[in-house]
């Protein structure tokens, strides 16, 4: 028996065309699962209903973790474990020596914020080095753009989606069965 679950991969050769096509399809009530593109397409996120990224919030949390860790480290190394005479001011007090620790805290904040954000991004996208590629067509890493539409996520049946997709300026279309 033929499966009714189908996945559409519709290929375009221009970012402007893919944006227009996405708008046309969304206007007909079709839900687009994802867009594969070699570069970010300005303005596509609200069209296909991608919510705003929370990556900036994670970055802030990583950065604050970095600040705290650096402060804790400086306190332990320079005040607690082996008290240091800093700049001829042997006060051995964290608050009085704080200016000397600010550059370290700043650098560690940036380090943790940037690396934490980059690693989170790669993990979330499944694009860490060595991870298997998940894009439907290797040409989307070069100069082609692919819209992915699943019948599972749409009210419209496969024939209706195919008809709607064929009205856009597409380059190629691939329709496959898949097991849910």
């Amino acid at each position, binding site marked *: 028996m033929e499966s009714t679950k189908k996945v559409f991969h519709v290929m375009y050769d221009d970012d402007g065309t893919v944006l227009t096509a996405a708008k046309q399809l969304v206007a007909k009530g079709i839900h687009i699962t994802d867009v594969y593109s070699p570069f970010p397409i*300005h303005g596509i996120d609200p069209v296909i209903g991608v919510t705003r990224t929370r990556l900036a919030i994670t970055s*802030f949390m990583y950065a604050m973790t970095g600040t705290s860790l650096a402060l804790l480290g400086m306190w332990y190394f320079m005040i607690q474990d082996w008290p240091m005479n800093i700049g001829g*001011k042997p006060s051995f007090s964290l608050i009085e020596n704080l*200016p*000397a620790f*600010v*550059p370290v805290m700043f650098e560690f904040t940036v380090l943790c914020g940037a690396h934490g954000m980059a690693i989170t991004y790669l993990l979330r996208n499944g694009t860490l080095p060595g991870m298997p590629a998940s894009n439907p067509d290797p040409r989307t890493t070069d100069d082609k753009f692919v819209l992915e539409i699943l019948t599972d996520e749409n009210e419209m049946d496969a024939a209706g989606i195919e008809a709607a997709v064929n009205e856009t300026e597409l380059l190629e279309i691939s329709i496959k069965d898949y097991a849910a």
Partner: protein
Amino acid sequence: MDTMNFRFEGRAKTLTYVLMGIGLLALVSGFLTDDSHGHQRFWANMLVNGFFYFSLALGALFFYALQYATESGWSAVLKRLFEAMYGFLPFGAGAILLVLLAGQFHLHHLYHWMDQTLYFEYMLADGSYSHEMAEGAIDNPNFDKIIANKGAYLNGTFFWLRTVVYIGTFLLFARLFRKWSLAEDEVGGTELHYKMYRRSAVFLVFFAVFSSTLAWDWIMSIDTHWFSTLFGWYTFSGMWVSMLIFATVCLLWLRSKGYFKEVNESHMHDMAKWVFGISMLWSYLWFSQFLLIWYSNIPEEVTYYIARMFTQYKVPFIGMFFLNFAVPFYVLLARDAKRNPKFLIPVCFLIFLGHYTDVYLLVVPGTLHDHAQFGFFEWGTFLGFLGLFIHVTLRRLASAPLIPVNHPFLEESKALHY
């Protein structure tokens, strides 16, 4: 073609007159009630306000030239606001020149190095001063070796030459930019635009040097024995961010009155990013100057901070640093806060006062020492200058189309979106 002009009238105009009235009252009553020697309190306050509001105008001229020199498109719809703001340059320069002239004629003693007796090692029998030992001469008790060694730079002739060149250059470029900008409205084309592009680059070269040296001459020379290499950049970042704060609040107000419809959310987001970014630049330079002096702990360098951190100025000095750094950092870090006037306006008001306090603490601890007071005279003058600045800015804003008619980047600027 939509060429709606700003109309300066009604409550806003009345308010600027009220503020200027308060300022005038404060100046007169302040001068009459000021019992400090040589009206030191009066002149110090004039320098604080003169420099603070001059730097708003100068920051606008710099930012304006920066937009041209970098061929920036986004800011084309905003350029008339910056033009209006640098219209205050002659007034600010006038206030500073008044203070410097009074100092030159020894009406006050803000600039210790202006005392000519400091430079001579010997005092002759007849009471005159000499560099050479002579019969009957004694050691000059006023002789100050450190200041005498700075005589090649800090002397009346060279000082006045520099001051006149700075102000002359700024006023000349401000006048030319405004003239060409208005001419562009009439003739169009790109010829004037490219002319302004080239002249802006020339201006920035002068500004790069003068912004540092004017801070040394007018502000840093108050603490004559002390010097800091990055003092000029620190005061420059302060003038830049104060100017951006004023421009941002002014834009929000004008938009709420229905003007500047071409200025969209993205422009305001950009302005907020500038306020945020230059606040961080200011904090970075403030802290860089402090850290090196604190760490090396050399007596001739720490005097500046001793006078500010271990005296009555401790709370405002440390408080204004945290205000100007932490408030914009934590509040304006989020994208939504930058786009929301409910966050932007309170932050702008707070750090505007914070940067005024910064300028106040550049001048006052070195001139009034432990005799400083902060009363009606100080805040009245601050408000008076604010009223004058707003009045001059808005009057000039009303005198030309709000949106430049023939700027080559106009369409690009109107379409700014991200």
